[in-house]
């Protein structure tokens, strides 16, 4: 059995996934774990990896290869290879939803729209670079401000009866707009759904700019919020795929690409032996 770890060092959380491959062509996910990213990326990666190993009930020595991704990918000394979160996100999404040609990744600070080829190879992509408006951070702050826990955001947003749109989605100035709504007596549900709607608007714009086609797969932590999924589906007029572990997709993709690399390496090695 070949065991490869994929570690996604995100801005908020670090997520690790263990993927095994036997001689059969298909892979199996043995464990996953997460840790707060914080200052020391290496530390966070180690913790997340350990959590994944515990989850799988395996020892560190069983791992053949480690692929890191996410904005902290270079911060992890014990990696064998680093891959960008865009490449790995697409790969992971493709593995989970082979018919999907289009990925939307909404994370803590960044929103990314990706189109890919049949093999899950990235074709085109767009990311928000200068401004974090419309990213997950916005929701975290809004939730904090409305004094509800982030876990409840999605559920509440679904109960909205008439959503109140948010115009400025500066991730930081969330309050100023929300104040208006709160003091105008708008319900928390409607505010949250309003936020999800405007996030969805931006995301759809991005999707269109990369030339969206076919099934859209939503990944990244924000996908945990049912509200945004609903908002997206309404705007796209189509179903949106969401993986159960949507915030682990990048880690998964990294692991899968890790397997590819590992296989290549071993082929090379064996060929050299032959000659």
């Amino acid at each position, binding site marked *: 059995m070949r065991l490869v770890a994929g570690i996604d060092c995100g801005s908020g959380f670090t997520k690790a996934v263990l993927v095994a491959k036997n001689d059969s062509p298909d892979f199996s996910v043995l464990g996953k774990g997460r840790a707060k990213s914080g200052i020391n990326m290496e530390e966070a990666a180690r913790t997340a990896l350990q959590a994944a190993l515990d989850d799988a009930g395996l020892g560190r020595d069983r791992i053949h290869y480690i692929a890191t991704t996410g904005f902290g990918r270079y911060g992890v000394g014990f990696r064998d290879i680093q891959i960008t979160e865009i490449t790995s996100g697409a790969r992971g999404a493709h593995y989970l939803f082979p018919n999907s040609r289009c990925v939307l990744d909404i994370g803590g*600070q960044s929103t990314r729209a990706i189109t890919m080829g049949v093999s899950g190879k990235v074709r085109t992509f767009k990311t928000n670079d200068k401004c974090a408006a419309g990213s997950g951070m916005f929701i975290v702050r809004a939730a904090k401000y409305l004094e509800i826990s982030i876990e409840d955001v999605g559920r509440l947003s679904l109960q909205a009866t008439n959503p109140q749109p948010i115009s400025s989605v500066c991730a930081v100035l969330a309050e*100023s707009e929300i104040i208006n709504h709160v*003091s105008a007596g708008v319900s928390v549900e409607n505010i949250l759904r309003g936020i999800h709607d405007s996030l969805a608007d931006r995301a759809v714009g991005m999707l269109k700019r990369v030339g969206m086609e076919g099934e859209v797969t939503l990944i990244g932590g924000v996908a945990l919020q049912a509200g945004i999924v609903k908002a997206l589906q309404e705007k796209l007029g189509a179903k949106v795929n969401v993986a159960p572990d949507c915030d682990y997709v990048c880690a998964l993709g990294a692991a899968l690409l890790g397997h590819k690399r590992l296989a290549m390496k071993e082929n090379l090695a064996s060929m050299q032996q032959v000659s």
Partner: protein
Amino acid sequence: MRIAAGVDVGSTQTKAVLMTENGGRTILARALVDTGANVRKAAENAFQLACHNAEIPPTDVGFVVGTGYGRYNISFGNAQLTEISCHARGAHFVCPSTRTVIDMGGQDAKAISVGSDGQVLDFVMNDKCAAGTGRFLANAADVMGIGLDEIGPLSQRAARPVRIATVCTVFVESDILSYLAQGKKGEDIMAGVHLAIAKRTLSLARRVPIEPDITMTGGVARNIGMVRALEEVLGTKMQVSPDAHFMGAIGAAVFALEKMDQSFEFSTWRPEHAAGSGH
């Protein structure tokens, strides 16, 4: 004796000031509360708290002027004015030699050029993006895991400030994180953050003539790191009164007094503007 109040409903904090007119104008009491979600409540509380501090019944207050960001959500008091007029007025009241006001609040930064009798000559403000505002600093403090009132003093110990590229309040978090990851010192990073904001703020402020004396107002004035950083980039000292945070409210109170002794009348003080709660 004549008593007037100024209430500055800020995006972050609400400030109330009571002033009295007998002989000279003097400040009777101050109050500071977090604005929170219910702006009207915050304004009300700040006003009540100020009255409580002054040990007078609210009914003794003859006229209340509301100002600040919250003005657009509620019309508090008997009349409202923009925070620009009020900060200029307040600065002029506290330091009459003021010719330029630099106000850094929770989510905007302003530069106001002030005339000899406290009137606004010119102003600029940044208010569409939280980059380089009090919120930016508050965020940085969170990331570093230290209190807002510690970052200033901390940054003063810096030996070589780091260079902060992004002004986006969100992205700066990852900048700070990667600097920490590189083993940079907390003080050097915070100094870098303050410097970055100072430069940004001043490149905006230079749209108005910046002439001495320069008075800094707004809550960020309580952050010694920001004050020093601004002074470094400006190349001159600023007036920073202990009342800096209350400047908007003080200005509003001064206008309220002037209104009461009829020495001054704004045409904006029309009924539809003075749909006041207050009392």
